[in-house]
């Protein structure tokens, strides 16, 4: 394991004539990276390629210096929680995690200790001796997560890991991802809940119809979307006065008084310059309450790049 990044070099994958992903070039650094896109955009294909469950039709993939077709080395430091909601028949939650560790070559004592540790991390200790067949959707999701993290991987790939989790467990699970990322791990998540993606991601990869349409930190991606000027919401006591002055700036393309009459929605092509100039525009009698970007989030970026009808995600 020599590299520090997960690299995709000109990777394409076709299912017969059907496109999975096409000409993907990525360099994913440590931290939480979210894959966002509509159904069929290629998120799962990308994850399956990363873990060797699929082979690329062309291109090269490198996971911290190891190719995905070398499972013996790869899965020493990679864990993958797939979206498949199926399990080996007749197993308890504990047996499921324990047997994975025995396949890693761990002794009984090591496997037992690591299995319980992982089960505790996903808060499933009480249910672990029970058969998985009797688990709820959320419990099944958590035992899969325990199986993916039981060997303490440095790269964790998670396909829709928050599906079926109740709000409390959801928050705990996100905290777990955050702690893993802060420890220097790569956590790759696909999720359809955009506000959660926004809250937890260090960077996002936006996919549409098998193509990567944007990648990087949310703010950076948003800045690059030039055809949609940045929206800034200014809360103040005299929005009309401020609006008349704001139009003096050539970077502003629109200023609209908010419906409640206590704010101003500004669209600008150069937000950084706008913030610099704003102080000069604020004259006596105008009290600023807050200034905040209104569409500098995954939701807006998604809508601008993929469209509101990009499919159900």
């Amino acid at each position, binding site marked *: 394991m020599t590299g520090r990044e997960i690299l995709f070099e000109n990777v394409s994958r076709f299912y017969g004539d059907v496109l999975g992903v096409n000409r993907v070039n990525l360099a994913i650094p440590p931290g939480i990276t979210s894959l966002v896109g509509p159904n069929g955009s290629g998120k799962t294909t990308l994850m399956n390629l990363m873990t060797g469950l699929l082979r690329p039709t062309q291109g090269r993939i490198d996971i911290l210096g190891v190719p995905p077709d070398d499972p013996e080395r790869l899965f020493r430091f990679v864990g993958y929680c797939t979206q*498949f909601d199926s*399990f080996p028949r007749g197993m308890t939650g504990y047996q499921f995690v324990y047997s994975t560790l025995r396949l890693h070559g761990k002794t009984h004592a090591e496997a037992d200790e690591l299995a319980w540790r992982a089960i505790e991390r996903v808060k499933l200790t009480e249910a672990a001796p029970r058969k998985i067949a009797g688990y709820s959707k959320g419990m099944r999701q958590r035992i899969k997560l325990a199986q993916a993290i039981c060997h303490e991987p440095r790269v964790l790939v998670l396909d829709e890991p928050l599906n079926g989790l109740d709000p409390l467990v959801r928050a705990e699970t996100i905290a777990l991802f955050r702690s893993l990322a802060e420890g220097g791990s790569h956590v790759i998540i696909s999720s359809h809940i955009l506000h959660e993606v926004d809250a937890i991601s260090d960077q996002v990869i936006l996919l549409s119809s098998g193509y990567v349409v944007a990648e990087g930190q949310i703010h950076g991606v948003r800045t690059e979307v030039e055809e949609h000027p940045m929206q800034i919401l200014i809360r103040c006591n005299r929005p009309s006065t401020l609006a008349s002055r704001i139009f003096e700036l050539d970077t502003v393309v629109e200023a609209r008084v908010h419906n409640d009459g206590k704010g101003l929605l500004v669209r600008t092509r150069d937000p950084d310059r706008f913030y610099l100039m704003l102080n000069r525009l604020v004259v006596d009698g105008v009290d600023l309450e807050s200034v905040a970007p209104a569409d500098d989030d995954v939701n807006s970026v998604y809508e601008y790049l993929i469209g509101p009808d990009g499919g159900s995600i």
Partner: protein
Amino acid sequence: MNPASWPLWRAQVLAVLRLEIKKNFLSKRGIWIYALAGAPVVLMWTHALMNMRHGRVCDLGRDSLIFATMFQFFYLRLAIFFGCVGMFLKLFRGEMLEKSLHYYLLVPVRREVLLIGKYLAGVITTCIIFCSGTALTLVALLIHVPRGAAEQYLYAGGGLGHVFTYVGTAALACIGYGSVFLLLGFLFRNPVVPVVLVLLWESVNPFLPQLLKYISVFYYVHSLVPISVPAQGDFAFLAILGKPISPYIAISGLLLVACASLWLGARQVRKLEINYGTE
């Protein structure tokens, strides 16, 4: 191959064996395999118990010929054949259909090690089922003849050797058919196609040119059976044409077929992808 990896591979094969053997024996879908193995046992034991109840004495020579016929034409050709179909075709393909194979592919196990582990688990399971079936049928054969005659047959008439040969032949058939169906499980999605193809191939084997005869399991195992069905008499229509080969060649040939099938299987498993949507 790094020799330092052997202890790890051994541990991983054992881990696969633990998982698979339990699954193989407890699978409800495998009940018909027990039924296939148990059918001759039930038949012979019913025959033995009826004779004992009515105090009839049987002709051991004729009964052992009946057993030889049953072993060759039911046990080897059908019971073990279809038992291996049920056991080995599902080792990979069955888990694909259940969408649980990916768990094996997401651990640091070489695909070839996984293949060997699953194959050995299948061989152990089928050997236990079919060798026990063979042994229990032979016990039924001997239990209702006078003790002296049975001892004479076992210790002076070469009967003990026959018992070991039958059990060993059943085990070798499991090894051979197991490897063939494991390979075919990778190549065909529909299990009916390989079953019909192999059954047809094995059936016409006596009529094939010598070179093609070698590509068979039945060709080797039928040469190992200690009692041949005579070409005259009641069972003549079941007699196999063709000269049997020496046991050494038969065992070596069968193991060669198994190794070749496993080698081809290893090539397939390395290319294996998880794409449940197409299954």
